[in-house]
């Protein structure tokens, strides 16, 4: 038997803050095996309204997880162009 417990500091981030009540933060896994991945069991909580769901690509707020680009593509493009001068 094994427990997966998220560290306190990682429990709340910008994305899961409003829905953290809906995401099981502590999960018991029986007969745990090595080299196997385990996914927390989803429990339906609230839903987006249909238009919002279509926009975000999921009906479930706790599954909404957009990738914020860590850089501005324009800046990178300009940097690459500038570096090619010589």
């Amino acid at each position, binding site marked *: 038997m094994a427990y997966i417990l998220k560290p306190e500091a990682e429990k709340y981030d910008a994305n899961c803050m409003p829905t953290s009540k809906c995401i099981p933060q502590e999960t018991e896994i029986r007969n745990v095996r090595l080299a196997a991945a385990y996914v927390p069991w989803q429990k339906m909580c609230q839903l987006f309204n*249909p238009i919002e769901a279509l926009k975000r690509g999921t009906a479930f707020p706790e599954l909404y997880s957009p990738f914020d680009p860590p850089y501005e593509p324009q800046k990178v493009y300009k940097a690459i162009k500038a570096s090619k001068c010589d």
Partner: protein
Amino acid sequence: MKDNTNMMELKKQIMAVHFMLEDLQLYLNTHPTDREALAKRNSYVKQYKMLRDEYNKCFGMISQDDSFSPYPWQWIEEPWPWEYEANFKL
């Protein structure tokens, strides 16, 4: 000329409700005994049918498969899916 704004608004609603159905059905495939999710899914089915009926009544065929057509065949009167007029902004 059809009322294009209302038509696109209704089409948007239909697609959005259809997306809710898809996502709830995926959830139900792994959670078949979740009564609340099932109830929500069934209520969206009802909404979906109502919206499609309304579209068929007011704006013509929403799909080839389950919309009646008066004479002559109406499907080719709709803009094709890749045409600008057939699409909406979210």
